[in-house]
């Protein structure tokens, strides 16, 4: 497979997933589009343990996707986010549009970037606390996946939902993968699995010329050119860094313990 085809293959997969979720969201099929969200599996755990029932609109598919994707994260980091998440696709499209529009995109200082990433743990804690306490998916009104595919449906909170969604889209346009980096609670759940995952990008220092194109291509701002081994929890194994690398075999996908 030539280098450029990796990204095209990824976009093809994301488009199929997007089409499937749209198909469900338009009322076709026997399931709600929400069944595709693995975070629903996390939200359903308390209800299942305490009453043996799924909370609100959650169902078995949420839970089975969650389990399968946690195993996937143990093997190849946050590959779900880069290869099969519709919000990841939205974030990437917004970031690429932003890339064309900005002459020089403002960069979030590394320390602030690191601190802001803690927000997703706050979102995770809030989502679990309110869901477990009320049995309802109370954060639906602020969830871009739900708001977009339900068309601001049942559970959205009027103008607040519009403001939050528009804010997130602008955020994704300014800061690549804004929602995924700072706010996605599923990303927080994946974090510990992603850090120890088996498959990761590695850099051969003897072949690398240090041109920095790999780091420039990374929407997660991972400094690939400085690493021997990309262990970052935010890596989605999108392999854009491999696409961008001009040197043969300087960057490789490897399985390493």
């Amino acid at each position: 497979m030539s280098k450029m085809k990796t990204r095209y293959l990824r976009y093809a997969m994301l488009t199929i997933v997007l089409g499937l979720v749209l198909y469900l969201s338009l009322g076709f099929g026997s399931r709600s589009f929400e069944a595709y969200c693995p975070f629903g599996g996390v939200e359903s755990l308390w209800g299942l343990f305490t009453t043996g029932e799924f909370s609100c609109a959650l169902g078995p598919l949420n839970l089975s996707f969650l389990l399968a994707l946690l195993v996937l994260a143990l093997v190849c980091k946050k590959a779900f986010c880069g290869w099969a998440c519709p919000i990841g696709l939205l974030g990437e499209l917004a970031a690429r549009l932003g890339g064309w529009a900005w002459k020089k995109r403002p960069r979030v200082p590394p320390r602030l970037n690191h601190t802001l990433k803690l927000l997703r743990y706050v979102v995770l804690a809030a989502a679990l606390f309110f869901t477990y306490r009320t049995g309802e998916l109370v954060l639906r009104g602020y969830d871009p996946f739900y708001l977009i595919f339900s068309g601001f449906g049942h559970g959205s909170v009027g103008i607040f939902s519009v403001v939050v969604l528009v804010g997130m889209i602008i955020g994704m346009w300014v800061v690549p993968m804004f929602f995924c980096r700072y706010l996605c609670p599923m990303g927080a759940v994946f974090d510990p699995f992603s850090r120890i995952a088996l498959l990761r990008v590695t850099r051969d220092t003897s072949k690398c010329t240090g041109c920095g194109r790999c780091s420039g291509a990374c929407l997660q701002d991972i400094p690939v050119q400085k690493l021997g081994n990309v262990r970052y929890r935010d890596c989605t194994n999108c392999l854009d860094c491999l696409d961008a690398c001009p040197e043969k075999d300087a960057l490789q996908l490897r399985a390493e313990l």
Partner: protein
Amino acid sequence: MRLPTFVIPVLVTLALTAGYGLRTSFTRPTTVRTFAEGTGVKATFIVDGVRCKGTAMFLSSLYEDIPGIFGIEIFAGERTAVFTYDPKVVTRDRIRAIMEAPIPFKDGTTSQVFKCMSFR
């Protein structure tokens, strides 16, 4: 060990397929209501409008006083309602008509809340 890049999409596809296949291991109804003792026969309806536990409870409440309905299991995630009923007393078309009937609201208006997409 070096791996080809197509390993990632293959693994993602496998995980999604496995997740879809595993769903039957976790299937549980959102709501179970039993109105009367009896074995009867079962009919499964795909119902647009069943979104959550609240709407599932509301749908089940429409059948509380209907003779011949023994019970109902609703799976909100699958938008599915499984009725146990006595076919000599109530028909599937009648069950469908009840769910699709306009619901009166407090402000005097009526609205169709549920729509049967298919049944078997």
